[in-house]
């Protein structure tokens, strides 16, 4: 099918967005800087948002393509449960956030099917790239949480490569406790912040 074409388009759109992002980045201040503050302008963020929007658009396009591919696959198949499996796969790929226990980087049993689907998708789409972002809740110290977020992201990345994804498709980044999904104290908030998010930067399923 022509999914690879869509991936190329998606990658092209995305790289345009990224290029815009990098070219508008304020240069690092040097000794001659007159400004009292090293200012990283909102233009950075605007560019990042443009990139994110392009990425989302690309993601929708790619998702439509994948659905079409899966559908045609299931139509072409003689097996009666192929359509069901395709729907399951699509649903599994829809899950992109995976939660963890306190000070823990072990994968929970309920995320295994979804991670296998992502690994399968990545192995079948060599152009797809995913940033594996690790996060921690606010308890504990910040650099320890940075390490803990990385440990979680690496646990997910290892599972993906162990199930068919190539290491070159994955990039691990830990944000520690610096980018909580939800604000506020309490286990309800903390549980939502101890997470790994898959962020497709190319070939979003």
């Amino acid at each position, binding site marked *: 099918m022509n999914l690879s074409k869509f991936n190329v388009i998606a990658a092209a759109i995305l790289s345009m967005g990224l290029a815009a992002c990098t070219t508008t*980045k304020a240069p*690092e*201040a*040097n*000794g001659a*800087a007159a*400004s*009292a*503050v*090293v*200012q*990283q302008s*909102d233009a*950075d*963020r605007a560019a*990042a948002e443009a990139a994110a929007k392009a990425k989302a658009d690309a993601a929708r396009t790619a998702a439509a393509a994948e659905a079409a591919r899966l559908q045609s696959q299931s139509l072409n198949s003689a097996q009666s449960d192929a359509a069901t499996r395709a729907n399951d796969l699509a649903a599994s790929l829809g899950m992109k956030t995976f939660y963890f226990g306190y*000070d823990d980087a072990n994968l929970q049993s309920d995320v295994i099917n979804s991670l296998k689907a992502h690994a399968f998708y990545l192995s079948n789409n060599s152009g797809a790239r995913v940033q594996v972002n690790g996060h921690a809740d*606010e*308890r*504990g*110290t*910040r*650099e*320890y949480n*940075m*390490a*803990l977020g*990385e*440990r979680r992201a*690496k646990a997910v990345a290892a599972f993906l490569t162990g199930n068919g994804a190539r290491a070159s498709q994955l990039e*691990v*980044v*830990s*944000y*520690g406790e*610096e*980018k909580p999904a939800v*604000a*506020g*104290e309490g286990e309800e908030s903390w549980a939502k912040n101890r997470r790994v998010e898959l962020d497709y930067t190319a070939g979003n399923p």
Partner: protein
Amino acid sequence: MLRFSTLLLLLTLSSLSRAELVIEITRGADDALPIAVVPFSGTQASDNIGSIIKADLERSGRFRALPDNQLPAQPDSSTGLNYAQWQSIGTNHLVVGSSKATADGRYEIRFELLSLDRKTRLLGEALTVPVSQWRDAAHFAADRIFEALTGARGIFATKILYVNQYPHNGKVRYRLELADADGFRPLSILDSPEPILSPGWSPDGRKVAYVSFESGRPAIYTQNIATQQRTRIASFSGLNGAPTWSPDGGRMALTLSRDGNPEIYIMDVATQALTRVTNHAAIDTEPRWMPDGKSLVFTSDRGGTAQIYKVSLDDLKVKRLTFEGNFNGRADVSPDGRYLALVNRQRGQQYQIAVQDMNTGVMNVLTQTPLDESPSFAPNGLSLVYASRKGKYGELGIVSLDGRTQVRLPARLGEVREPAWSPYLRP
């Protein structure tokens, strides 16, 4: 005839009048020394010098200042002082002084510290400063008074570096700021839409190091405060974190995961050459130097929970230092090397600031709030600044080493965290 020594402050930071942090003394030591500080006479460029000195001394927890309305008189020098008038107020020490505008637009500030029972002058000094150093002059005087009466060097003329997360056009932004130790005169030195963390000072107080996510990934930068010149010193694959200068300023300890998992490395600042210090499959991070520069303390979960360990740089031998509680992290070492300040979690789910005496191993929990972190010793080792949380907002706190004096420093905008107390700064 009085003889004044004349001093000139050479600080280069610009002055801002608005206080970013608000000081609130929540707990004072009950044996604080009574003192009377008379408002200074003469032209005052902004807040009265006497008021700034008084607030400094009270904030230390070591002094209890007489309210202005209980002062029996308003002298501005020891010349002709009526000592009898001061016998009944219950204090043995009196601070008086004056300010005068000079012909070249600066201010000459004189201050004296008097012993009322001995009827003698303990200090008598003068400084001439530009208006931009008005508060520096007051903090300098407070430092001199503090040292004369306690024997310990004062820290009122030092600064605190911290991260301010603030809302801007519906988004979150991050600022790296430094402010006077009383929270006044905040100065932003970096402003970014992406997180900034782990700021720390060079031992000469001229540079800071920090982690910034401005590239989308963590990288370590150093920045000269006066010139704003920045250098990216580490942007390896994986973690680049927890930078901390060696006491001699020539090396930087940091955390990298470029070789697989978080390990502690030492970078030669001049050559950027790296030496790996730890080698363990567990998390090793948050290094801090012992004052002699021969070993590091760091956080590791190699024993199953996060605890503080010490590694000797000679033989790389590792020794566990903390045993109380199921989390001990982000240690800071007191300037004399005797105490470890750290984030401690006991069974009750609370993260509090504790101090461990390295001679005895005894740990003393200093704070009562549940999510405290990032303790940083004042350069005189008598108190710590740390990050705390009030409701949804991060704020700073200062606590004395004995836990008896506490001060809150909430932010006026957004929240503040990750404080780092400066070393002693020049005059």
